[in-house]
């Protein structure tokens, strides 16, 4: 959509540029994430313990989970800011249904379906009514959170079955790895395969690089976007279920504000806010980097205000830096061209 994206469309680049792309921002973020983990383990007291890694992964999970479909959405050049509110509304409804005596096995799929429906509403506004996704999802962000408060008010529903809540907070075999990492890994693999190894993924990049070109190439752009919003909503719904079970508390304010962390992780991971660029491994590394920095700073008694500042700053840097690099490259190219013209 942007000029930078147009100048190097993903579809026409073939294998070598794909490798080249991986060798740039995404790899840098992966290296940064690993470095951050290593530095924090060495420098921050109490960071490098197995228990802390469990905490870190648990805090990271909802963000990473929601970031998976968000990556698709942002790569197509759109955004979904309603995910945290979808999570909250799902959680509130889950509490209501649980209180009404429905079985948890019925409630959980219902909640995922609810998330999908909420996502479909976003998709309808964006693709059928052709409204800008930023405005639509800011609207539904407020709408869904408001509905959550209507459903549950300031009440909390607790008492979810212990077998579920302890699985969600537990670790695999009592070790370091939280059980919750299993659904994340499964979904990450699925999303990663779809994005990087199927025609669907290439369509997503095509739409993000140039929507018009994609349409001329025969891609049903609006249909694709609609389904991405449905998936985004469904995953947010799943995150709402897991969130509720993790804190054994269904509340309307669950997940408040995590869209900031999700978008920050996606952009930090090298996805261009203008669409057409980015990889899923990069996004996951972005989520790990963000969680590591926050965990380490919290252990150093950095206040929560400062943590918000850090998240915000990382978000801005991750939008700013690629732009600066791109314009620097473009300027360099122009200069070279001028020099060559001068010679010729």
């Amino acid at each position, binding site marked *: 959509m942007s000029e930078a994206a147009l100048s190097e469309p993903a579809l026409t680049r073939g294998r070598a540029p794909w490798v080249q792309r991986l060798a740039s921002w995404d790899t840098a973020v992966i290296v940064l994430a690993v470095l951050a983990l290593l530095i924090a383990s060495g420098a921050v007291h109490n960071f490098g313990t197995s228990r802390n890694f469990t905490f870190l992964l648990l805090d990271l999970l909802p963000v990473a989970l929601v970031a998976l479909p968000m990556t698709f959405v942002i790569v197509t050049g759109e955004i979904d800011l309603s995910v945290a509110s979808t999570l909250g509304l799902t959680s509130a409804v889950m509490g209501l249904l649980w209180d009404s005596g429905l079985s948890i096995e019925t409630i959980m799929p219902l909640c995922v379906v609810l998330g999908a429906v909420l996502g479909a509403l976003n998709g309808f506004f964006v693709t059928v009514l052709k409204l800008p996704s930023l405005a639509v999802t800011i609207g539904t962000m407020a709408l869904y959170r408001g509905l959550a408060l209507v459903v549950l008010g300031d009440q909390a529903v607790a008492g979810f079955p212990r077998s579920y809540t302890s699985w969600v907070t537990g670790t695999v075999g009592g070790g370091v790895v939280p059980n919750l990492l299993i659904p994340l890994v499964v*979904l990450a693999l699925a999303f990663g395969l779809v994005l990087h190894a199927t025609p669907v993924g290439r369509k997503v990049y095509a739409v993000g690089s140039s929507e018009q070109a994609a349409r001329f190439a025969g891609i049903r752009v609006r249909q694709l976007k609609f389904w991405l919003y449905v998936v985004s909503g469904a995953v947010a719904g799943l995150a709402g279920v897991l969130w509720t079970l993790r804190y054994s508390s269904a509340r309307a304010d*669950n997940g408040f504000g995590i869209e900031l962390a999700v978008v920050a992780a996606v952009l930090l991971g090298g996805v261009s806010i203008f669409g057409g660029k980015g990889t899923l491994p990069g996004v996951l590394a972005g989520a790990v980097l963000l969680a590591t920095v926050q965990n380490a700073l919290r252990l150093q008694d950095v206040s929560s205000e400062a943590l918000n500042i850090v998240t915000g700053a990382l978000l801005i840097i991750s939008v700013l830096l690629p732009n600066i690099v791109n314009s620097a490259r473009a300027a360099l190219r122009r200069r070279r061209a001028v020099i060559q013209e001068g010679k010729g």
Partner: protein
Amino acid sequence: MTTMTSRLLAGVLVAGLVGSLAACGGTTKDSAGANSGGTQSTAAADPNAAAKQGVKMAFLPKQLNNPYSDIEVSGGKTALEELKGEYKLVGPNDASASSQVSYINTLIQQQQDVIGIAANDSNAVCPSLNQARGAGVKVVAFDSDAARDCRDVFVNQASTQGIGDKLVELASKLAGGSGEVAILSATPNATNQNAWIEVVRADLAKPEHSGLKLVKIAYGNDDDQKSFQEAQGLLQSYPNLKVIISPTTVGIAAAARYLSSSSYKGKVALTGLGTPNQLREYVKNGTVTEFALWKPADVGYLAAYAGVALASGQITGAQGQKFKAGRLGDYTIGANGEIVLGPPTVFDSANIDNFTF
């Protein structure tokens, strides 16, 4: 290809669904049964054990930068200075349920001895608090309780009975033992206020208060303007009214403002729960004679002493155990590990200038 698009995406969706359906059966609210987690400590307490020095206690209020909780934790700081402990204050910016959990986890990692927490959600913090207790950290809930089985003790600012009794005592004194009384409350479904009003009703039904007659309960919805208008309405509807009881800080301030500007000033008495800063002006100009509130700083102070007593093994949280809490004197743990701060403090023209909250 569009069908393939939808099929693949639908596949991902279905995978999510199937994932969440992994377990079969049918666990409902009724079959899940009691969801009790950790246990109360069973270790024996040694009331004569020396108070440990250097106890590291972290306070985790509902939210940072809230004026009320700032005062509460300042009391904790004072107490830990007296006890030569290490005070620390951490907390989230938003009062959402789950934001405290990351902080509890951090405190576990930092190997604090005691966590003092005002829980945003009594259940959401539970698994983490029990993890903390499993790691040897003592947990003192203050102000707002965590679920009973995931903290050692709860420091309650005041018992419902204590507040209701104090309100009636003040009203009776101000009315001179007989006359019409009205209540200006918060919202009709405010939990705390309704509990106190129930106690007030029960007390008024007792023979020693037979001269007092409760004529009306008005609701100002904790909105300044609405409370102001409701106060005005009470005086117009009940010309013989002697006392207004307002068990909410918003209501009492609005009623005081109305009274002080009306001809009822000095004739109709006002009492209830308010802060000295709100009502100083009205105490000085004679609108308000006496009102009450617990001292927020004492809540934190008592929580810190309870925390150090736990860490020193003087108490374990069982009913009937006793400990000393500095200038507040001796305390005994009540049922369910609850420690009640005591009756609310009464403020009047003689002492109001000693308080700045």
